[in-house]
């Protein structure tokens, strides 16, 4: 069965990509995943905050004590590696050396600044593509949606500037005019769009009066929101589309492909079931396609996207209205 797909210009043997997360931190796990057939890897993002804040705070905590006291002009050996990009770049090089499939770096930030230039460093370190996370907390009452979108587009242009490798943008679903913004990103020249960023959960400890941050594994229920987003954009934009979040079993992959996804990114399912789950899913997909008489995955791709289904409103408000009634 032909499961081949094209994502960000890469011809992949199947759509299963190891998504951005802890699985790519460990070279041993990365090798196991490649053995299980991973088509590509996306590294955990290099966060703007990680770059800036860790550098600055490490700088303050070491330098503010240096050259202060006669007996000790410093209190620790000179670091061999700066926090932030150097460490990340080194990891990227190691992963690249360890596997033969494409390795995508990821960058996460929300403001215009020097950090966007790290994209070129990632390229130089061997990243085959870049996934850019544009996350915005929307907590600033002074910032309008239009301003936020404008800044994000500027960030995209800044990142893409001078970059040869493909850039995918990963978005949250929280946009007033999601399709419009996605189209603008497409016009700005992005090569792919990943739907959607999963959020940390900020719970409340009602006794200690503290925020408790958790990041539970996803399940298939999270897929539905993504299906709607992809269905809305597939066929309307040039960029590749990937689903991230909620892909756990063969039917999830089938659905994602039906709405038009070129690739699926998986983390939770692999954390839960282990690297071998990739092999299982691939076999399951081949079996399902055969059983349902599809000659290839490509044939099936996009058959349920907005412009190919008789009632696109089923995805939209009427759907909710009917449900509520």
């Amino acid at each position, binding site marked *: 069965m032909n499961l081949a797909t094209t994502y960000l210009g890469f011809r992949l043997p199947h759509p299963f990509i190891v998504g951005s997360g802890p699985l790519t931190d460990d070279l041993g796990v990365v090798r196991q995943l490649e053995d299980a057939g991973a088509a590509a890897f996306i590294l955990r993002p290099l966060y703007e905050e990680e*770059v800036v804040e860790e550098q*600055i705070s490490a*700088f303050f905590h*070491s*330098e503010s004590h240096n*050259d202060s006291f006669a*007996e000790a002009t410093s209190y*620790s050996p*000179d670091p061999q590696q700066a926090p932030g990009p150097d460490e990340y770049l080194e990891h990227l090089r190691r992963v690249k050396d360890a596997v033969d499939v494409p390795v995508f770096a990821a960058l996460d930030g929300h403001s215009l600044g*020097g950090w966007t230039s790290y994209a070129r460093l990632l390229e130089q370190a061997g990243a085959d593509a870049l996934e850019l996370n544009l996350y915005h907390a929307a907590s600033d009452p002074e910032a309008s949606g239009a301003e936020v979108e404008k800044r994000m587009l500027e960030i995209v242009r800044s990142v893409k500037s001078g970059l040869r490798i493909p850039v995918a943008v990963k978005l949250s679903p929280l946009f007033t005019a999601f399709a419009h913004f996605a189209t603008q990103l497409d016009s700005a020249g992005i090569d792919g769009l990943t739907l959607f960023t999963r959020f940390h959960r900020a719970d409340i400890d009602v006794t200690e009066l503290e925020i408790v941050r958790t990041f539970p594994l996803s399940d298939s229920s999270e897929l539905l929101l993504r299906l709607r987003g992809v269905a809305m954009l597939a066929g309307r934009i040039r960029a590749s589309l990937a689903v991230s979040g909620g892909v756990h079993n063969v039917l999830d992959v089938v659905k994602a492909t039906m709405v038009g996804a070129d690739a699926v990114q998986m983390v939770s399912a692999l954390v839960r079931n282990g690297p071998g789950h990739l092999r299982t899913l691939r076999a399951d997909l081949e079996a399902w396609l055969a059983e349902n008489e599809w000659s290839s995955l490509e044939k099936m791709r996009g058959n349920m996207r907005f412009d190919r289904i008789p009632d696109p409103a089923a995805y939209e408000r009427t759907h909710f209205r009917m449900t509520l009634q």
Partner: protein
Amino acid sequence: MSKRATVDGNEAAASVAYRLSEAIAIYPITPSSPMAELCDEWASRGKTNIWDVVPQIAEMQSEAGAAGAIHGALQAGALATTFTSSQGLLLMIPNMYRIAGELTPFTMHVAARALATHALSIFCDHSDVMACRQTGFALLASNSVQEAHDMAAIAHAASLFSRVPFLHFFDGFRTSHELAKIEELSDDDLASLISEDTVLAHRRRSLSPDRPVMRGTAQNPDVFFQAREAANSFYKACPDIVAHLMAAFAGRTGRNYGLFDYVGHPEAERIIVIMGSGSETVHETVDHLVGRGEKVGVVKVRLYRPFSRAAFLAALPASVRSLAVLDRTKEPGSLGEPLYLDVITALAEARAEGVSHLRAEPLVLAGRYGLSSKEFTPAMVKAVFDEFDKKVPQRHFTVGIIDDVTHMSLAWDGSFRSEGEDVTTALFYGLGADGTVSANKNSIKIIGQETERHVQGYFVYDSKKSGAITVSHLRSSSRPIRSAYLVNRASFVACHQFNFLDRIDVLEHAAQGAVFLLNAPYAANQVWDCLPREMQEQLIEKQIRLFTIDAYALAKQAGMGGRINTIMQTCYFGISGILPREEAVAHIKKSIEKTYGKRGTEVVRRNCELVDQALANLHEVKVPGGASATRVRPPVVSERAPDFVQKVTAVMLAGKGDLLPVSAFPVDGTWPVGTAKWEKRNLAPEIPVWDPEICIQCNQCALACPHAAIRAKVYDEGALLNPPSTFKGIAYRGKEYKGRQYTIQVAPEDCTGCNLCVNVCPAKDRTNPKHKAINMAPKTPLLEAERANYDFFLDLPELPRTEVVRLDHKASQFLEPLFEYSGACAGCGETPYLKLLTQLFGDRLLIANATGCSSIYGGNLPTTPYTTNKEGRGPAWANSLFEDNAEFGFGFRLALDAQVAAVRHLVKLLAPHVGDVLATELLEANEGSEAGIAAQRERVAALRRRLRELKDPEALRLDTLADYLVKKSVWLVGGDGWAYDIGYGGLDHVLASRRDVNVLVLDTEVYSNTGGQQSKATPLGAAAKFAAAGKSVGKKDLSLLATMYGHVYVARVAFGAKMAQTAQAFLEADSYSGPSLIVAYSHCIAHGYDMAQGPAQQKRAVDSGVWPLYRFDPVRLANGEPPLHLDYGAPKINVADYMGNESRFRVIERADPERYKKFIQESQEAARRRYIVYQQLAGISVPAVEPQRPQTESPELDRHGGQMK
């Protein structure tokens, strides 16, 4: 042409030592530590010696250990070296005799430092080196940074040639830490000096089973003497070998040295003989005086041992009529200091043998100078030359101090100067934290590298670790700089902190027409009006140009907090014109990239941004013709301070300690306590503010405060007589002090703003959780009111110790701290334990303190934190050495036990006179509680009243000893470097006794005071100096080892994790009659994170199982209960969640993720195993044997008060 570099003396020497060695044994000690650190760093980077091999580096447990390791390495055929100073050198002496006795080629490098006598000093003199004269080592002195480089090479070569081991030394700090431009020796230069034949000969003499010999035999009266004399010819040959090598060195490098170098008038009549950096100052002065036509000169001693009489005499011009021999050491009771005696002997022998070429028999004077880096200036040199002209010169004198007791000191004219007019001088006053010194180090390197000028950078640091003031002394000149003294006439002065203007006379050394750069938080047109009147007058009088910039505003804007160094550095170059502005800016940016590149691109970017903004924000302020300010500098200390503080401490605080005469000081190093309270440092921009309505009255803020700057009190409402209007108090909520008022009060001028109190505060406003019971707020608007509130608070009556209902961690904070406002780092993790110690037992406490952080913030002048209560009682504190603290404190106990035995004997003897009832009560007192102790104090008072009526000598003796009837608590305090490494043997021995001593190990897991070198307490995976790649073996479990004795009370505590357990352990340790050991987790700046998070990180250490909490109590063992009680549960967070928060671990993750991962896995597994093992140990009990007394109890216990309390 040889390569030039701007380096300090330590690097200059280490660079040669490293390249000429194969085995290097190291141990940290100030000021030589950087030599060891550099070698370790070079080895970790794979740098090779001249034989293309990376030397083997090993940190040992002490200098004695390093010397032993070196001795072994030499015997086994390696070329070896080591580095040390002061007491460290003394610890090497036994092996030095051995190494010399075996005629072993070896060179060690010493940054000369004072030996501890009446006090410790980290600064320079030659008392350490002079203590090695008799070891058989050659002593070779370097006088400058260049010489530290050159002589190092000559020493290594000479030792190989002569087989005499060499001690190469240079002045600690003055040379070891001075930055200067030198011509570097290449590997080829070094190789040209070293004869491979001598290396092979050394190898052939090594111990090898292939050609076995033995060394270290025991010899008897029949042969020892002769065999000892067999080495004579090697010592006779040594000076010529050195002279020959110096000539060869000169042939290659053009730098000429002799065994004794004469500089001065060829027909000089007055000559100074001197060794070390002071000889450069004499050289400069001689040049100046000869230029004025005076017939003076200087003999610089280089090879001091073996002392070549012929070479010394040859160095003297025949015209000499008088000699002053200056020694940088003191040998009480001798006829003169060592160099003087050698010179006298040389002259006398030459005269006796008729070989002297001198036209007249010279008058020889002996002078002492420069002890503990006391300034030695051209004016003092001139005073020495002038002494010869007096009718009756002082045969023995001191110079540099005012001796108004034995009147030995020479007076000098402070206005005399010999520095050339071409020398550019600059002084910078900054804070350690603002980066002033690091910027100036870069500046001096830029000038050194980018111009042909010679440069000198010397840096003076504060005695405090928090809010430390630094003064940078920079010189540059077209001629070599020989000024081995501080800048005392500066053409450029910068003050990087506006608040210094009220504390220090920063323009004291400004030259006429100098430039003054001031960082001021005001607009340029407001700055003049904000200056104190004294400064305005100086600016006008000296016609100083004033420049100003608001550097803090710029730095804050750029997200650089208080780091203003690059701004001020740019302004310095912008104003001084040493380099064209654009060129200077480019070089500064280049140096930022070099210095901060490994800190990250964002750090570099922000610093460079500040460079770009600096000059645009620099303004010149027009200095008016007259002073307008009415504000004058406030007094240094309050007028309420005691006489000694006013007359001595205040002078030292004002930076004028050099002016204090000999008579101002106690003769034996004894110093009054309670002086820190008079030094109001006002370090914190924000201070904690208490909200009584939110507060749950847990006292955790007070317990965690490292500086005793936030305190709790309960008191009767009636005590509130006329409180200040803003003074806060609220009804106490608990039952134990029902009806009383409760206050938490901050000491606004003593708080360092570390935030620990806020972070540990558990009480939140439920309607607004970010508001806690303690919140930081800007100090300025609060200062006046809080100062009055604090004074009022201090005057409120203390809770009587007898009224403490249940003494625990909370109640401990109602007891007066007798350790306050120390100079420890802001947020220090050690000092809360010491403060608690003084609260619990302070009025009957003796502390033996190992050298280290705790002895520095505990005992470094001008002010010290240990203090007394209103009755005048408080901790008695002393520091002996680093290595002997356990034995030292043990000696306290021996003395106490002896005196308790004596006093009990006298009470029994005089019982018929003082009353049998009182005597019996005194002898059988139960002092197990504060009430019991108070009752015993009353009985002692009653005893004294009765003794007054008695006239016999026993009554007087009893009166003298009576206080020993009240039990004392002896604590041996020190860090992990002491307890785990250098002092472990002694500590183990003390624990193996049954004496009642308590050991508190403040475990920061590195040698904190000397800059974070690894100890055996350093945990697996932590990066530290000497373990840059992360420590590869786990931490020694000192406390578990101690439990193996069975009779030792042992606790492992972490106040940030469980304050109650900490306090309980302290109380149990004190109450246990045998030895006790408490190992206390102490977060430290060397761990590399915000110290405000220290307690939270302690909790993570415990929760992850990295730092177990437990108490092992032999009393429980005797009762048939399990002696080990675990105070922590099974690990509940991952070790990675603890390690990932600290830079010491994170740097390994960045450099080598796989290694870090391995460390994490091993640490995780170790934590798991540790808990399982401890859990099993905690379940073990041995049934008690009743009713017999424990058979292990020694008879001594009965005699010496070892009974259970």
